[in-house]
């Protein structure tokens, strides 16, 4: 039987599918003939940037992926890490940026749904979700990049829609949303970032992989029916930049049904327990096309399917549409021939469609039939593995943003209370309680450290003494100024956050958000960021086990700040020892841990403060350089924090990051029961730099006063300075420098500013 060929493919049709003339010629060469329209569709989605990683692949190879805990690195649906007791953590982060701009609610909701399926398709039950979100400003701000009123109104709508979408999907599905971070910056106006990290738990001997096995074994379609939604979501939506007509792409956004996903989860896990499931993959980006061709390719087999048997939502859907649909909540699995009834029975119990639509073959081809007509026949490897790989041109931007811009001039004043109050009201620094309060963060009753309660989210593992800690971090402003250093900071901060909770960082996942890879300057940012991540992950021993690249984050030709987000996973041996950031006890000592060996020069302080959140909020500046970073010092701090946690010496721990030391000290009070810091520390630096510099390798802990000497002993072993700078009180918040008052205020009034800023920003004017 030969492949049906109804219309000739013109160069225009190929171009409309996002394929270059060279790529189209490659398709003709692979097939030895012209593709028909269905085949063209299959190639176009699988060779899209989103699915093929054609621009990033050569760079991603430089990331470290091996480590003693790693069971499965990149290449499967998610990364897998051994956490002891015969259990594995299965985790991965993915972006859903473009859909969330076009349709914020459904875009964010299906972003959550997609990554959850990646987790449970491996046999793991999802136990936590974190969201790393970036939006344009929701309040008027100072500075050159300030957004106009129209942008601000749109940013608020996107922000609200995304939060509601995440809340809708995660809450109904029954997975706690336990953390993440939210940053507001004009770089993300008209191009929000929605990166979702999901974590699941599986028994090590019960993991499932997406590799087809056994000639003649049935290929079974399960879950929701196929509709016309999401066609070309991966190619035309995710792999192109935005222009004025972007709203017309709304039909490319999928629509999610978390209830269906919950049924699919339970049915899949139950079906897996029968022992009759050999392989399984979710139908995410590129739907039936990717799941069938990737399972065949990974297993070195072929797959033949009959589209007439695919459950369909409406009549008249063409083979092209069925193959490209991105309808949500669907899975493709391969069962053991003779035992398919056991599998089908489980899906029937849960009220889900489950239909045998084809079988595994030996010829390594993806063969698609429809009512006796051969619609497509392509080597599975050609689609899944032999896509184009580009070494895109790279060019360092001539004018590096920030390079020639003026630096901050230190104020001669000594009192900074008013600036501090304004910093606390900045939505990036302010409390995210309004956001987290819309997420069910406690379902499954494992949440040891609630969102906002600590530097990392901590979930205990029932049936063991252990807990897992997770943190996501990334600083687009720093990466814009210096992508390599900025990316290293993202790794360092995520690891530091995990260590603050008392957990040993063991592995990482990443989500790399960049502009158009066809621009040499963007590729330069990408290459630099990859090298920074690789170096930091190697030094801090957190191998990358998976992740996702999101290019084309550009609207009207303007790219976002390069924003690599790192998610670091840590293991806590004793869940009871999990540390939050909040002060616990009036009278406790406050100790500043600092692993930095050399004091910064005045010029360094000036450069690093110019790139801080403080400089942006107070002075409207985004210049200078990210703080210098010494990975060995970061590692010392991590090890010191872990040693302190092991001995139970700290009552709270909070790293110094966004907003600097002043914000760190204040936040530990804000999340406590009415406690506040009163500190006095010696400094040789200008007060503004001491208070607001975001230099890393530092953390603030609180502890019983009689523990301080032991803390100092341990810190010394790790070459970390432990300086007792003050105490926890029920009185007002005070920071003195060299005995001179720098910030003071009623802790309750400061807390209100911090707590209510986001809600106030959204109030109708």
């Amino acid at each position, binding site marked *: 039987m030969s492949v049906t060929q109804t219309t000739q493919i013109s160069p225009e049709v190929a171009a409309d599918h996002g394929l270059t003339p060279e790529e189209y010629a490659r398709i003709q060469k692979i097939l030895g003939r012209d593709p028909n329209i269905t085949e063209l569709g299959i190639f176009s989605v699988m060779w899209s940037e989103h699915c093929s990683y054609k621009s990033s692949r050569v760079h991603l190879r430089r990331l470290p992926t091996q480590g003693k805990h790693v069971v499965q690195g990149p290449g499967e649906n998610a990364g897998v890490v051994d956490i002891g007791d015969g259990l594995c953590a299965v985790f991965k982060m993915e972006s859903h940026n473009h859909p969330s701009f076009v349709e914020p609610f459904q875009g964010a909701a299906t972003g959550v749904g997609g990554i959850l399926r990646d987790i449970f398709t491996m046999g793991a039950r999802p136990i936590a979700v974190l969201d790393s979100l970036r939006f344009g400003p929701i309040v008027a701000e100072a500075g050159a990049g300030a957004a106009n009123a129209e942008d601000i109104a749109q940013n608020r709508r996107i922000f609200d829609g995304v939060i509601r979408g995440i809340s809708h999907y995660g809450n109904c599905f029954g997975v706690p949303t336990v953390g993440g971070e939210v940053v507001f910056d004009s770089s993300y106006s008209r191009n929000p970032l929605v990166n979702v990290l999901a974590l699941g738990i599986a028994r090590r001997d019960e993991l499932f992989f997406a590799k087809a096995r056994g000639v003649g074994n049935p290929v079974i379609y399960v879950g929701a029916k196929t509709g016309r939604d999401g066609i070309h979501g991966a190619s035309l939506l995710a792999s192109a930049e935005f222009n004025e007509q972007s709203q017309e792409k709304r039909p490319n956004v999928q629509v999610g049904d978390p209830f269906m996903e*919950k049924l699919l989860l339970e049915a899949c896990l139950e079906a897996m327990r029968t022992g009759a499931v050999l392989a399984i993959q979710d139908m995410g980006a590129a739907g039936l096309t990717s799941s069938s061709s990737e399972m065949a390719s990974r297993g070195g087999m072929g797959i033949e399917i009959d589209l007439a048997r695919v459950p369909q939502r409406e009549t008249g859907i063409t083979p092209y549409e069925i193959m490209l649909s991105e309808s949500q909540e669907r899975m493709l699995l391969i069962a053991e021939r003779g035992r398919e009834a056991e599998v089908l029975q489980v899906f029937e119990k849960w009220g889900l469609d489950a239909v045998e639509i084809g079988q595994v073959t030996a010829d390594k081809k993806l063969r698609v039939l429809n009512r006796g007509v051969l619609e497509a026949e392509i080597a599975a490897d050609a689609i899944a593995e032999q896509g184009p790989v580009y070494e895109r041109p790279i060019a360092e931007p001539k004018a590096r943003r920030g390079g020639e811009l003026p630096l901050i001039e230190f104020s001669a004043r000594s009192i900074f209370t008013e600036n501090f109050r304004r910093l606390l009201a900045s939505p990036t620094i302010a409390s995210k309680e309004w956001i*987290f309060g819309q997420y069910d963060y*406690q379902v*499954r009753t494992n949440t040891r450290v609630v969102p906002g309660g600590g530097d990392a989210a901590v979930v205990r593992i029932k049936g063991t003494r252990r807990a897992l800690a997770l943190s996501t971090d990334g600083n687009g402003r720093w990466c814009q100024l210096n992508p390599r250093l900025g990316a290293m900071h993202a790794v360092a901060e995520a690891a530091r956050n995990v260590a603050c909770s008392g957990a040993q960082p063991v592995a990482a996942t990443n989500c790399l958000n960049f502009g158009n890879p066809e621009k040499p300057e963007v590729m330069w940012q990408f290459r630099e960021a990859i090298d920074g991540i690789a170096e930091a992950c190697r030094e801090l021993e957190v191998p990358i086990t998976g992740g996702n690249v999101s290019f084309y984050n550009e609207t009207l030709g303007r790219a976002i700040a390069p924003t690599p987000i790192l998610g670091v996973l840590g293991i806590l041996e004793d869940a009871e020892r999990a540390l939050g950031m909040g002060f616990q006890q009036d009278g406790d000592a406050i100790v500043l841990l600092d692993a930095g060996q050399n004091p910064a020069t005045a010029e360094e302080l000036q450069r690093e403060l110019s790139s801080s959140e403080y400089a942006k909020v107070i002075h409207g500046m985004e210049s200078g350089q990210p703080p210098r970073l010494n990975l060995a010092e970061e590692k010392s701090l991590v090890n010191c924090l872990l040693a302190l946690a092991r001995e139970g010496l700290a009552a709270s721990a909070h790293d110094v990051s966004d907003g600097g030391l002043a914000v760190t000290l204040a936040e530990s009070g804000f999340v406590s029961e009415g406690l506040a810091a009163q500190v006095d520390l010696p400094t040789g630096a200008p007060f503004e730099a001491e208070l607001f510099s975001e230099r890393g390798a530092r953390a603030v802990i609180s502890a019983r006063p009689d523990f301080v000497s032991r803390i100092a002993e341990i810190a010394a072993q790790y070459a970390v300075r432990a300086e007792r700078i003050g105490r926890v009180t029920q009185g007002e918040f005070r920071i003195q420098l060299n005995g001179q008052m720098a910030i003071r205020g009623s802790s309750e009034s400061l807390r209100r500013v911090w707590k209510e800023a986001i809600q106030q920003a959204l109030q109708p004017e």
Partner: protein
Amino acid sequence: MKFGVVVFPGSNCDDDAYHAVGSVLGQPVELLWHKSEQISGCDAIILPGGFAFGDYLRTGALARFSPVMQAVERFARRGGLVLGICNGFQILLESGLLPGAMLRNQGLRFLCRQVHLRVETTDTPFTSSAREGQVLKMPIAHMAGNYFCDAPTLAELEENDQIILRYTAADGGTVDYSDPDANPNGSIAGIAGICNRERNVLGMMPHPERAIEAGLGSVDGLVILNSMVQSLMQHSTASA
């Protein structure tokens, strides 16, 4: 003594209730599938939180027609203990085992946070081990927890001492029920939990099964669950 936890398609706190009763209280417990027509052998039933049948149509509106609910209704009418938590409360309202209805939260947003509840009466099998006026801390997590009923029904609830739990301040003092900080979802008269006239069916929006271990933020949910265990033990002693 055996607890039964009903599993509807879309229940997502079933495992948590099972864990609370089985692992924390150490009592026998069994999951009951929504299609089962029998719940024989169970001495108390928990309808757990979640989104039964996706909350399609209205919360609880489809779940009440599940075969298991016919059995639960018979069980309740015979005096069996039934605890509906969150979505379970919504199902009890739809099934008519409790009076009133549930509206969306007044702010039209999902709310997840710790709340304080005042025990209004200890004269129920669910609060018998509490002190009257005792303040319990436990979390809420819902989109539709804004309890509503008409004035005669409210008067009847008050008259018959059927209001078991109300939202309150940390010290148990009186609060203004129009203040979203105090009465987060806008429930009429600050109602967080009510029982039926016979006092053997309790519906509550807050989650006692999430407040059972110190590491999770509160152990006050044990007051509710332990009261049930004690009531069942007394009942079995009395009938022996």
